[in-house]
């Protein structure tokens, strides 16, 4: 990818001194005690139990580990692409948050702390994609859990605190998994550095890798850990945008991409099938939701599992598909969440069923929502290119492992389900009555700037990908950009306007969306199946 060439001169390779290591250990323990105290304060036993489990495991690790020699911070091509995503997408969202938080009813100090935590979080993310030391990775992972906890409970009402504690204990399961990975890595391979681990890995004992992948599943909210992400949507919208769609949850496919060259074929097929299963499951679950941010959250879960599934396949084309999907999904989802925040703050609309029509009062927001949905499913945008590459890569890998045809089938069906999900929402947004006029939309400046930055990134990114030929990119782009051009130029002055046809009846038509609710027992069996799958992962790790 051409972006990497821009950052080619930036090579970080740094080793911490011994005292820095000690400071990090100390801060880690302080953090874990803070989590335990939070669980104790709010009487959540799971949080306290998991925090103490982590303290015990961390102590065991410190006891077992002698002095190690290795590079602590190492940047490779993958981390450079992640820098681009974190800083540009995260930066736009922080700009947006400056205006958003002003309209919340809190004191100045609390508002400042919001922005401070967001920027601190961006710093943690930049470090986490550069971390080569798995212990440092664990510390930064727990720091992101802390940021998530603090930001979800920002509004300090009962719902927020409950959801924040649920996010806390589920993410701590991921922390436990990373600690188990550390311990097995020390005991069996005698190293705690990613690059050294990938070199000495034996295909018959992949437990460190498996535990890290389980931590990725927790962070990426696959089944059965999906509830924390859905509950986290009560947080302010910039939090949902940064943490829970564009940046923090991207750690999941990032880790799988980092580790995937070392998977054995059996582990690779297992992860691919699990990711595909969650992709279809999450898309099906989203078909009956009403809360707009919850729909976006479920589609995030679905696409993250697709990224994990593609990254695990191992071939060069599949990894490229996963990477392109990662970058463009971050931009598109951030754009969509920003529009959801605008709908919430300026038009006071949270649920889709409350929306009457947006063409008259919010044409700009509507256009960005349409572009956001189109960029996740339609040509020429990045997510479409990644699906294209993925289908080709899966066909090739299917010839070696025929059972992966189910991954291909899930990819295709899940993509169509996502198209249906996104475009059925348009029912409520787009339906305009006869004889109405559009009005100009007034938005605060920073809302406009942040949306414009992300939109420009989406469109320019199309040209930076050198997979499709220029003609193939231009045809759909011209067709999509004909929409506003034709709308402005053609207004059909000499055709008389009439109202809609209703068989001559005088009733009023209330627009509704169709919903598809999954049977409860199918949902339960999906959750059980996912737990069984996780256990199978552990078995595969020792085969």
């Amino acid at each position, binding site marked *: 990818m051409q972006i990497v060439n821009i950052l080619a001169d930036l090579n970080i390779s740094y080793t911490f001194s011994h005292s820095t290591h000690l400071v990090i250990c100390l801060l880690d323990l302080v953090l874990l005690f803070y989590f335990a105290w939070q669980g104790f304060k709010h009487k959540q036993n799971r949080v306290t139990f998991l925090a103490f489990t982590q303290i015990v495991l961390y102590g065991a690790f410190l006891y077992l580990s002698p002095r190690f020699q290795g590079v602590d911070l190492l940047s490779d091509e993958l981390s450079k692409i992640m820098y681009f995503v974190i800083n540009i997408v995260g930066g736009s969202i922080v700009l947006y948050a400056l205006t958003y938080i002003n309209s919340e009813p809190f004191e100045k100090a609390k508002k400042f702390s919001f922005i401070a935590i967001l920027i601190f979080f961006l710093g943690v993310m930049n470090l986490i994609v550069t971390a080569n030391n798995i212990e440092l990775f664990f510390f930064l992972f727990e720091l992101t859990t802390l940021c998530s906890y603090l930001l979800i409970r920002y509004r300090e009402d009962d719902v927020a605190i409950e959801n924040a504690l649920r996010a806390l204990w589920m993410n701590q399961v991921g922390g436990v998994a990373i600690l188990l990975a550390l311990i097995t890595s020390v005991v069996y391979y005698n190293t705690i550095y990613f690059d050294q681990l990938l070199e000495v890995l034996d295909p018959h004992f992949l437990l460190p890798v498996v535990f890290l992948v389980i931590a990725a599943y927790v962070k990426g909210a696959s089944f059965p850990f999906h509830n924390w992400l859905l509950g986290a949507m009560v947080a302010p919208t910039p939090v949902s945008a940064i943490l829970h769609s564009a940046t923090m949850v991207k750690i999941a496919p990032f880790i799988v991409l980092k580790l995937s060259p070392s998977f054995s074929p059996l582990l690779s097929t297992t992860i691919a099938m699990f990711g595909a299963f969650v992709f279809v499951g999450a898309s099906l679950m989203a078909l009956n939701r009403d809360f707009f941010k919850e729909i976006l959250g479920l589609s995030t879960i679905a696409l993250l599992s697709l990224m994990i599934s593609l990254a695990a396949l191992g071939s060069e084309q599949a990894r490229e598909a996963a990477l392109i999907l990662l970058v463009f999904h971050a931009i598109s989802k951030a754009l969509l969440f920003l529009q959801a925040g605008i709908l919430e703050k300026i038009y006071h609309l949270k649920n889709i069923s409350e929306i009457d029509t947006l063409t008259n009062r919010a044409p700009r927001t509507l256009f960005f929502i349409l572009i956001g949905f189109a960029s996740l499913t339609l040509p020429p945008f990045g997510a479409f290119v990644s699906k294209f590459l993925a289908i080709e890569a899966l066909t090739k890998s299917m010839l070696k492992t025929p059972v992966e045809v189910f991954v291909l089938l899930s990819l295709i069906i899940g993509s169509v389900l996502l198209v249906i999900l996104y475009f059925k929402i348009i029912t409520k947004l787009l339906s305009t009555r006869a004889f109405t006029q559009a009005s100009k939309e007034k938005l605060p400046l920073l809302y406009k700037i942040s949306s414009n930055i992300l939109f420009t990134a989406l469109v320019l990114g199309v040209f930076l990908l050198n997979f499709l030929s220029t003609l193939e990119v231009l045809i759909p782009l011209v067709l999509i950009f004909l929409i506003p051009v034709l709308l402005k130029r053609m207004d059909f002055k000499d055709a*008389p306007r*009439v109202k809609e*046809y209703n*068989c*001559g*009846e005088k009733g009023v038509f209330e627009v509704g969306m169709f919903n598809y609710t999954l049977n409860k027992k199918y949902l339960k069996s999906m959750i059980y199946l996912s737990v069984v799958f996780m256990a199978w992962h552990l078995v595969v790790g020792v085969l």
Partner: protein
Amino acid sequence: MFNLKKYRKKSPWILHYNAGSCNGCDIEILASLSPKYDLERFGVINTGNPKQSDIFLVTGPVTYRSRERLIELYTQMPTPKVVIALGSCTCTGGVFRDMYNVEDGIDRYIPVDIYVPGCAVTPELIIDGLIKALEILENKTKEIEDAKKLYAQPTDKEGVLDLTKSALKVDKNEKS
């Protein structure tokens, strides 16, 4: 240049509306669309949509509930359009003439071009009526029609159509 008007009679799309009839004429219309009498060889399609049809086939003497819908469907059809009144009830009221519950035919409410009598109207007559209607259609313009004065309408003092009264009970001495 290219005389588009002659193509109007090669593709007549009909809209069929039942304004309170006994369904006898409706059955005959459907029979004329069936293989024995085959209206489709003239290019006729039975669209259910006024915005896409040229010919308005109405059956039935107009009952109170069907008056508003009759006029609404008529106004939703784009010009040029032709109205065919099928069956004796639609032309003059037929066997229900002078009854308390019907308006005697549609020509009190919309301008009619062709009257096809019969009770029920036979398919051969329907085809005849349709062919005559096509010749009338060819000569119509695309302009939206001016308001016409039909048979005496029941209006109040400001000249607004009074939908609660029947057109039959209009006082002939009243100014309308």
